[in-house]
């Protein structure tokens, strides 16, 4: 079926099977390979993208639901002014090893910062990132990174400003 939707702010038009997963459309049809496939079953969060302003597992979104929607992938997120500070916090806390899970965590982090009222408790961060798995680092370093970000007013303000441009 023919589908028109927005990806990272740009209109795209493709012709795909209605059952094709958003994840495959991004990687195969649009050559946006920053979004990763881990489990393909909604469990690992490696494929997380923003879909109409909410984070979802792109492995569980069929093409037929895309017309008229707006999708943001990590390629779009990298253009956010707040992104370098988020990436830096992850790196400084040693929360990135092989990096495979990183795009998913980055998407979840910006979504979490928008979703929640501040300040975030460690429990809330843990719950909020529960849909993202990492096989390398152990979660405490990731939680440390996000905890730091959630206490930095300058980053938070920037994230909120970036969100307004996105949706």
């Amino acid at each position, binding site marked *: 079926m023919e589908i028109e939707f927005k990806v990272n702010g740009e209109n795209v038009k493709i012709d795909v099977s209605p*059952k094709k997963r958003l994840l495959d459309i991004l990687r195969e049809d649009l050559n946006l390979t920053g979004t990763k496939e881990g489990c393909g079953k909604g469990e690992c969060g490696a494929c997380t993208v923003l879909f109409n302003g909410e984070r*979802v597992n792109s492995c569980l979104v069929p093409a037929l639901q895309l017309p008229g929607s707006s999708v943001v992938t990590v390629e779009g997120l990298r253009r956010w002014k707040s992104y370098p500070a988020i990436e830096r916090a992850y790196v400084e806390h040693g929360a990135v090893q092989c990096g495979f899970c990183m795009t998913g965590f980055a998407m979840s982090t910006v979504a979490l910062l928008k979703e929640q009222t501040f300040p975030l408790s460690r429990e809330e961060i843990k719950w909020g990132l529960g849909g993202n798995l990492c096989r390398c680092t152990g979660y405490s370093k990731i939680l440390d990174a996000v905890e730091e970000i959630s206490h930095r007013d300058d980053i938070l303000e920037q994230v909120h400003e970036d969100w307004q441009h996105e949706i």
Partner: protein
Amino acid sequence: MKSNQPLNSEKVFRPANLDELDALAAQTAEGVTYVAGATDLLVQEERWKSARILVDLTAVKALHATLEVRENGVLIGAAVPLSRLIRHPLIRERLPILVETCRQIGSVQIQNRASLGGNIANASPAGDTLPVLSVLEAELRIGPRQNGEFEKLSLDQVMLGPGQTSLNGNRYIAQIFIPFPPRDAFWYFRKVGQRQALAISKVSLAVLGKKKEEKIEEIRICPGSVTPQIVRAQKTESLLRGQPLTEERIEKARAAIECEVSPITDIRSTTEYRRRITGELLREALYLWLRN
């Protein structure tokens, strides 16, 4: 209505409103596959592969966007994502048991897509919202409308057993009305699963109760996952109703529910284990109530 006929003969419909949805449901002879959050559908490979006529329920506002708070309860579109319920201030205040349950489903990414309608229609005895909707005595509104009216059914009239519902002939869940329990009601939901974050629950229990002058005025208990159909533990309830809540009563209730549930045996868990855990959960719930 937009219809697309790709080469491989899959048909897609994205009805723009209830009238279009009803016309489609009534006039399509073949069985259609309704798609809400797709969080069950896309992981059920065989079912998904064989689906020929796909109807996107998220295109229909009455199903995907309805969230109407009334004086006595809330009307929720069957395809509304669970996160909207979790974040809604009035639902948080009046239906904490539902909010807590939704928070335990999958992950935020799943909650941003998954719906109550999908949880019910998927008809897994492990569906976490089912025991909770049962103790809340939710009313399901079923389409297509006849003479302009949805049919109103209770959960046990719709969910008949594992993978089985009464939704034949392209009938669909349109909306769910949930009456508010009294503000001072006691509530409890707990699931004991295999994995914390993403467990499909193995044993769960929902309890809703109200005391009056130190006696249990009303109590509703519903185990999840253990029985093929979602049914309340009525014998155990009647053992408690009208009685003062004492330690002795709690032990009796625990023994009663262990007799009352007839667990499904599958590879994940043995009969005896499920029975015992159900009893333990009820005991925990009632002790919490006793102490608060």
